[in-house]
């Protein structure tokens, strides 16, 4: 059954590649990028698939037990635009091209220095025979890295100036996950990709890991009155856990509940808030109104201006 599905997927992606992407690459004189473009196609399709899964899971949940009514539909539409731009299009491609070049330079430098780039399986040989365990190990390491990136987004003034766009949303839904400044997305992609390269995540597993983390992040932003119980709240980030992170009192450097997938990091580093039954409103009242209710372009411009001001010490 699974092999039949894999064969169908391969036929479909092959058809798209042969009839749309490859002729374009040929016309542009970029055929030496064909294999990279083929790999990127997986990213885009996984992005599309990710959106469909997220909508299928989160929309019924939001209809079932919403925390608050959907009154500001324009704000939700802006978040939807963020999602489509982020997951289907230019940003993954940009990150991929940047990272592919960085990877080449990094590995060439290592081999010149007489070293060969490491992989996690070489450090822990058991993982070589246990691909599922290896996958889980990569997820845990990358989730840990994501926790610290998130801490930096709140702790560094210039980065918070960008990240405040994400927190300014007062009508938080599962679409809010991708509401980020473009620069913030690029920084996040470079950070995530660099860690993945450093520990040697296999190319085939990378889209799966991204899909898993993205699904968890979207669900955690959903407008649903849902917690995972006393034990579950400590095992997986829930909508309740993350909503508390989006509360006004949690803005900037005073944040709680930074984790993306595993709350254990907040637990370990003293930033966890496990109060069940607390579903506060979201938003950042002290930040400019444009970040909350402006359109995509306006939010990008204001975010950039504020970041420059923060860097200049104003």
């Amino acid at each position: 059954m699974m092999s039949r599905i894999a064969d169908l997927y391969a036929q479909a992606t092959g058809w798209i590649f042969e009839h749309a992407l490859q002729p374009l690459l040929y016309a542009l004189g970029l055929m030496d990028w064909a294999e990279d473009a083929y790999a990127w196609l997986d990213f885009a399709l996984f992005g599309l698939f990710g959106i469909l899964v997220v909508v299928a899971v989160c929309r019924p949940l939001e209809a079932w037990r919403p925390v608050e009514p959907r009154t500001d539909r324009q704000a939700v539409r802006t978040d939807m635009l963020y999602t489509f731009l982020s997951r289907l299009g230019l940003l993954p491609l940009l990150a991929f091209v940047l990272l592919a070049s960085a990877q080449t330079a990094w590995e060439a430098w290592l081999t010149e220095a007489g070293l060969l780039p490491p992989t996690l399986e070489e450090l822990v040989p058991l993982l070589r025979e246990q691909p599922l365990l290896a996958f889980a190990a990569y997820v845990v390491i990358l989730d840990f890295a994501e926790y610290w990136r998130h801490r930096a987004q709140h702790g560094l003034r210039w980065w918070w100036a960008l990240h405040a766009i994400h927190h300014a949303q007062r009508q938080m839904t599962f679409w809010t996950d991708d509401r980020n400044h473009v620069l913030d997305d690029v920084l996040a992609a470079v950070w995530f990709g660099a860690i993945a390269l450093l520990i040697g995540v296999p190319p085939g597993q990378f889209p799966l890991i991204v899909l898993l983390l993205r699904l968890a992040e979207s669900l955690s932003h959903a407008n649903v009155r849902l917690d995972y119980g006393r034990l579950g709240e400590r095992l997986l980030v829930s909508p309740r856990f993350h909503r508390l992170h989006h509360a006004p009192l949690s803005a900037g450097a005073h944040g709680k509940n930074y984790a993306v997938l595993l709350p254990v990091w907040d637990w370990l580093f003293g930033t966890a808030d496990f109060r069940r039954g607390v579903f506060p409103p979201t938003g950042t009242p002290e930040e400019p109104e444009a970040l909350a209710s402006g359109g995509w372009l306006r939010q990008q411009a204001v975010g950039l201006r504020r970041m420059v001001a923060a860097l200049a010490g104003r």
Partner: protein
Amino acid sequence: MRRARLALCLGLAGLVPATARADLVYVLNSADASISVIESTTREEVRRIPVLREAHHLILTPDRGELLVGDSGGNELIAIDPASATVLKRDRFSNPYHMELSPDGKLLVVTSLRRDQVDIYEAASRTLLARLKVPDKPSHLAYTPDSRTVFVTLQGARGLMAIDLATQKPLWTADVGPQPAGVTWHNGKLLVGLMGSDHVAVVSPADGKVERRIYVGRGAHTIFPSPDGKLLYVNSRVDSRITVLDAETLDPRVTWPLPGGPDCIAFDPEGRLWVTLRWIARVAVIDPKTGETDSFPVGRSPHGIFVEKRATPLPPLAVSETLPAAQPAHDAPAPLVQTEDDMPARPEAAAASAPRPASQRRLWSR
């Protein structure tokens, strides 16, 4: 697997005609971090060998005792006993993309597509003799029959580079056209597939001058001589086809449409072509007499391919073989298989995996 077992039982019972075959087809699934071992009669995967990252190309050692698979992303060279599909050893090796042994068997040249490097090793010890920093994306390579020169296509730089193997220095670099990929030595000339164009360039090995262009369709990629040397098979990625050229005149004889992005080709004892189809995760089997094509699924982005002759199906894995190895793979017991023709006997395979002196081990694992 059931069909393979049935074939094995019938074979043991003497019910299968003596001409029956059960060749093993090795397919490198470059985007799945694995090697599929397919039985040619049933087209079923009888083994799947995991690799670390991206396996692209493979070569057979001259004694046919080892199939060497390069895992470029994982920096490993994997030695497999082709008769039994047993992993003999895995060695640390810098980014092996395309690799070939020199005709005299003394050198192993390896291109590193992503690191812009060409490495020259002593074949027997795998000692690195020279590492050349070259222009963008060194892809495929070919030797002169006297093993004095190696030619490397530079995919991102429109180039073909000739390297003197005595001095280990470049002789010349020539512009041969957009995105050159495969290169083959043929009747005193070099044939270069131009992925960014629709033709094969016939290039002088003396100075890299393009002397002739042969139209084969957009995305010309690699050129494979037929086992009898009378034909050349050229695949084209964009027009997705194989063009059959007369080896003497280089005139096209016939074209076979082959959707899916044809790449590497291997030949079985009956002369059929086994072709990896990169974009649809399949392998095509072509009867050259009729052009009839059949295909079956393998892993993602299949690239290198090899057919090992076998008379009987590979036995099913024993329970102990399906468990994680408690000892290095090369210490595994010799499988009880009967192969035909001049396949290497077990003692040779064992000798190939015997521990090396410490100094050689260090160099091997460079």
